[in-house]
């Protein structure tokens, strides 16, 4: 019941041919469709719905919206009421308005990011099918990413002006959409300012994350790989394709994931994220990272935030 998982992300790109080279040849996503407006739809080989990435041609980089899939159509009615009762404007859009999806709920998170919830999307199927499947398909390109794993959204944080959109977005996700808080970063003189959160609906450490920054935006969207060796190989592929890498293979302290941060040709940050981290469950106690160890939380080995972490990102709306 309720939200199952991340459904898709709609990313704006400045140069579609360059973007496709990146998302297809480097990440290894599979193109499933293209519409008359020039939007291109892609999925990972291990995903069954029609798309998890929608690329839209635009003159500014960033994210248009992010969408999560709910389990049953009736969940949309329940959640619509809960969103409205919370005091957030919510609109129901008819089937097809969200491409290849059934009816959907459209609303803005307190952080200013546009979110959709939907229950149905056109089915395509995994590349290996469902009858006696092979463990992976032949002909994968690049990193051969399995699926869109999560997104990290930047939220405005300015404690001196009393602004904390991380805390507001987290509260909304928890109280309205039943996301569980798995990890958080607490900062400030009294350690009482929630500066970043990692939240889940699946049994992974996060299906969405919020980090405080000077302004709201899209920090990254992440694609799943199995394990450390796949991460190394993905980095080799990026080097081969002269992809701008932000952070070379490393471990996150938070979520324990194995990561690479890199940029698509429009400057939107991507991540390849491997390892399942740990099993997250409703009764798992919340993990807290303090300001002193925050660098280690993000980049476990160097223990330092790189300069780009909170300054380099694209628009979130």
């Amino acid at each position, binding site marked *: 019941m309720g939200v199952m998982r991340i459904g898709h992300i709609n990313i704006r790109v*400045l*140069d579609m041919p360059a973007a496709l080279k990146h998302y297809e040849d480097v990440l290894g996503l599979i193109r499933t469709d293209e519409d008359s407006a020039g939007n291109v739809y892609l999925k990972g080989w291990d995903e069954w719905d029609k798309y998890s990435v929608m690329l839209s041609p635009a*003159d*500014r*980089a*960033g994210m248009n919206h992010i969408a999560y899939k709910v389990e049953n159509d009736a969940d949309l009615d329940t959640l619509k009421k809960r969103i409205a009762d919370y005091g957030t404007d919510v609109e129901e859009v008819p089937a097809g308005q969200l491409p290849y999806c059934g009816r959907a709920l459209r609303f803005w998170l307190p952080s200013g990011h546009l979110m959709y919830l939907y229950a149905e999307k056109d089915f395509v199927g995994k590349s290996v099918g469902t009858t006696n499947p092979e463990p992976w398909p032949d002909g994968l390109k690049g990193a051969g990413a399995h699926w869109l794993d999560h997104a990290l959204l930047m939220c405005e*944080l*300015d*404690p001196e002006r009393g602004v904390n959109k991380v805390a507001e977005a987290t509260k909304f996700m928890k109280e309205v959409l039943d996301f569980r808080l798995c990890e958080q*970063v607490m*900062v*400030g003189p009294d350690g009482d*300012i929630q*500066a*970043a959160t990692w939240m889940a609906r699946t049994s992974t450490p996060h299906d969405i994350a919020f*980090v*405080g*920054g*000077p302004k709201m935006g899209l920090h990254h969207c992440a694609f799943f790989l199995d394990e450390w060796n796949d991460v190394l190989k993905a980095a080799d592929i990026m080097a081969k394709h002269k992809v*701008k890498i*932000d952070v070379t293979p490393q471990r996150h302290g938070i979520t324990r994931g194995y990561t690479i941060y890199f*940029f*698509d*040709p*429009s*400057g*939107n*940050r991507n991540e390849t994220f491997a390892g399942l981290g740990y099993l997250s469950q409703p009764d798992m106690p919340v993990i807290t990272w303090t*300001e002193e160890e*925050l*660098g280690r939380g993000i980049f476990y080995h160097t223990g*330092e*935030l790189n*300069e*780009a*972490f*909170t*300054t*380099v*990102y*694209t*628009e979130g709306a």
Partner: protein
Amino acid sequence: MAADMDPTKRWTIHIRDTDEHYDCDAGQHLLKGMLQLGRKGIPSGCHGGGCGVCKIRIVSGEVETITMSRAHVSEEEQQQGYALACRCFPRSDVSLDVVGKMQKTVCKRRYGFV
């Protein structure tokens, strides 16, 4: 100086802020050449024209630009010479001002990320 489209040419770029010069091939973007100076504090981010940290203003000379996010350089600004260094390829000697700034070092952040 007139624009020269020969992609094999190498041009001299002048950073007015620090009064430094560097060479940049016509096929290499201005930010890449700047980074080869090996100096700290050069605003370098996505190298895709999306994040805006490498914003510069071309004071003189010719560059060829490729797509830049309008979130960071409006059409009006572009006419005034503003551009993103990672999207500019020199077509003559160029003189520029650095406009974008990376947020200062970690120790200046008072609340972890900000």
